[in-house]
């Protein structure tokens, strides 16, 4: 099947609304429902009969049974339970973790089950993909999903996991501001410097881009993944509660949700009118009129907008540009529809923002174009993005040592050499973090692992090389190698936040069991899970016992691993994947035998045959 007969799609997985789009005949088309609406509210409803509903219908059910509906799940992607509790009360019921592993993610309580933000997002993705499939029943091609530019590695991984749970393997992540610039740029094609101010329901991003001769290059990016229109709703909600004489702590999540919905309705009204009002029904039966005008709204929004201003100024500094150098400003996200926001940006950057594309749809359209470009190899446009946050490790003393600085163009890699603090130190404790602060405790923790088996040396003599590789989607892989010994040690990376790979795989299998999927899809998914596991196991074995193989044998096995990896990415038929799996299994059988023999010998003679005394 040629690539042009597969549909490449772009998905804007938003905090409040999500969209899907694709490119036909050079222009983007938005996926719509029967009523012609392109926005899918990012709401998921878990009915007590086991059905899962997404979108407007979920919203409707949510008004009847609020405790079964989840809103704004994106704000909780990649967060730990403790961080979620600190988020503004959005009417969510959080399930208390029962052990340490569970506390690494957020779990929502929807009555008879607990769901993670990843699973909720997966449901939304499934719905969007269905929309894209319908019009002409084309096979699904490459999928581009947008993320806030300022999402850290764990949040990006969580988005990837959600895609995997939804059955999507060929996925690329794209930063939202870059997507918006792409949507605008393709139409306008004027070289210059642009700023994208993206204020959505839950996140804020600012990116400074340079467009030159068909190349979009991000110069700098900044943002806040816990700042958005939801916070304005909360501020208005506070006023409503005051008028009602209630305090937020005493209300249950359902009531909070109702208040927030009213707040949002008022906010929307004020986009078109200068005053808005609703009737409040008090407990004693009396009714009062609650009024809000644009001026009051502006005052409520101001602290939030000031925070975005600080981030914008820093992004301009990082890009080495001043506001007057900008050729255009692009507004993205429903919240920028508010007149006070548009005014604020105009004053901040000294020019009227570009109009022309619906701020709700522009990101999805940009994603669709990118998906089309990547799949069908159109030669017109190229996107070059950057790393939004510095990446590094924790060093002795609790300091944060940067290995890759923020706004470095991606893909990128860095290698730094460290040493030991004490004589005969036997292991390194490596804590990987993201952030801009001096102390590790103030940065975002990504993963922790221990590198064991360092040969005994005086303090300061050992040499540890830590390598970071960041791909185009902004995702990080870490390698740690002890240089003075000939042995490469195996490293176990435990994510400090979010779902581990095994947890995601387990969810995928569970989902299969619960859904009515056809047999072929089930087989394909199962083989994918097995393939990933086998690749891990073989790589680990190679790292530790490769001396048991000749160079030729090792090369053969590595090639087999590569083939299986490629198969994982592109196989659409379970049979192909099954064959590749079997191939690798038989390739590695003799290797396994030798490893088992060595292990037995170890036990018998009490010596690690890799050369270390036990």
């Amino acid at each position, binding site marked *: 099947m040629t690539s042009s007969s597969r549909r490449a799609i772009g998905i804007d997985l938003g905090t409040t609304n999500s969209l899907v789009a694709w490119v036909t005949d050079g222009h983007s088309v938005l996926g719509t429902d029967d009523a012609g609406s392109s926005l899918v509210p990012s709401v998921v409803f878990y009915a007590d009969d086991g059905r899962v509903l997404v979108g407007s219908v979920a919203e409707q059910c949510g008004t009847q049974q609020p405790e079964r509906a989840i809103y704004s799940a994106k704000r909780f992607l990649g967060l730990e339970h403790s961080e979620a509790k600190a988020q503004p009360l959005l009417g969510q019921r959080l399930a208390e973790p029962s052990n340490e592993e569970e506390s690494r993610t957020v779990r929502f309580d929807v009555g008879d089950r607990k769901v993670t933000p990843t699973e909720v997002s997966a449901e939304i993705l499934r719905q969007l993909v269905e929309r894209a499939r319908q019009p002409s029943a084309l096979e699904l091609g490459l999928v581009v999903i947008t993320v806030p530019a300022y999402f850290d590695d764990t949040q990006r991984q969580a988005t990837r996991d959600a895609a995997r749970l939804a059955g999507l393997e060929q996925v690329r992540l794209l930063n939202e501001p870059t997507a918006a610039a792409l949507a605008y740029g393709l139409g306008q094609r004027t070289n210059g410097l642009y700023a994208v101010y993206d204020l959505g329901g839950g996140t804020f991003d600012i990116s400074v881009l340079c467009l030159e*001769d068909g190349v979009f290059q991000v110069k700098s990016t900044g943002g806040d993944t816990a700042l958005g229109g939801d916070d304005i709703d909360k501020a208005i909600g506070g006023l409503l509660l005051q008028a009602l004489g209630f305090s937020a702590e005493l209300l249950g999540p359902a009531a909070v949700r109702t208040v927030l919905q009213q707040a949002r309705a008022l906010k929307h009204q004020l986009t078109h009118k200068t005053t808005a009002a609703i009737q409040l029904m008090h407990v004693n039966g009396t009714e009062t009129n609650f009024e809000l005008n644009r001026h009051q709204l502006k005052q409520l929004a101001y602290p939030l907008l000031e925070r975005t201003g600080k981030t914008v100024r820093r992004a301009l500094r990082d890009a080495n540009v001043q506001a007057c150098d900008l050729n255009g400003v692009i507004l993205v996200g429903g919240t920028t529809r508010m007149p006070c926001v548009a005014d604020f940006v105009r004053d901040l950057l000294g020019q009227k923002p570009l109009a022309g594309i619906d701020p709700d749809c522009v990101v999805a359209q940009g994603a669709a174009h990118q998906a089309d470009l990547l799949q069908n190899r159109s030669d017109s446009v*190229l996107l070059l993005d950057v790393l939004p946050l510095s990446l590094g490790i924790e060093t002795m003393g609790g300091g944060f040592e940067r290995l890759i600085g923020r706004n*470095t*163009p991606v*893909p990128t890699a860095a290698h730094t050499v460290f040493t030991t603090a004490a004589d005969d130190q036997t292991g390194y404790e490596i804590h990987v973090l993201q952030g801009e602060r001096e102390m590790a405790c103030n940065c975002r923790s990504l993963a922790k692992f221990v590198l064991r088996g360092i040969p005994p040396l005086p303090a300061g003599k050992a040499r540890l090389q830590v390598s970071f590789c960041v791909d185009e989607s902004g995702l990080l892989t870490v390698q740690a190698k002890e240089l003075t010994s000939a042995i490469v040690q195996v490293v176990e990376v435990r994510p400090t936040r979010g779902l581990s790979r095994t947890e995601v795989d387990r969810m995928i299998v569970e989902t299969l069991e619960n859904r009515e999927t056809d047999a072929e899809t089930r087989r394909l998914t199962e083989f994918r899970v097995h393939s990933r596991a086998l690749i891990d196991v073989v790589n680990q074995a190679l790292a530790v016992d490769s001396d048991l193989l000749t160079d030729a044998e090792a090369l053969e096995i590595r090639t087999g691993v590569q083939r299986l990896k*490629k198969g994982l990415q592109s196989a659409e038929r379970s049979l192909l994947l099954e064959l590749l799996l079997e191939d690798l299994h038989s390739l590695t059988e003799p290797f396994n035998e030798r490893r088992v023999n060595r292990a037995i010998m170890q036990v018998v003679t009490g010596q690690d045959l890799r050369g270390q005394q036990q």
Partner: protein
Amino acid sequence: MPDAFDVLHIEPQFVVDRSELERHHRALLAELHPSRQATAPAPAPTDALFAKQGAINAAYQQLSDPLTRAELLLTRQGLSLSSAQSPELVARIFEQRQALEQAVSIRDASAVSNCVGASRARQAQLHSALATHFPQGAAVTLRQTAEIGLILQELRYLNKLIQRGEQALDDLE
């Protein structure tokens, strides 16, 4: 072994045309992009492609900073820097760091900002001094390597100071 100058096709000298550097960087990445490769594999980049892209980005980073650019030029000429330190320089930097920490501890944003500004000005001075040590087309003398070494050391200390100052300003804002 091709170094950053070779990778980006930039004339190996200290003074570099910023816009030329950017153009070459963009053009080289554009060539490699999967959407422009006739024989490109499936959308996910291969390890080899990733390595090439990474090398181009790394070269760009190296040539963008006058400090790393100077170090690279010395390496090209087969010269190495001595690690000899100047007690006077260390003492001066100690005073400056102390002044910065003092300003931070009393939350004096404008004093911190002044420290950062003064350091940047000093960096600009040192960059100009570096330019005189790398005359167009001529080789660097051994004696010069000692002076260059001290300039580079001071630039590194200043980098750290500025980094610390800007972090503090972010917190104080």
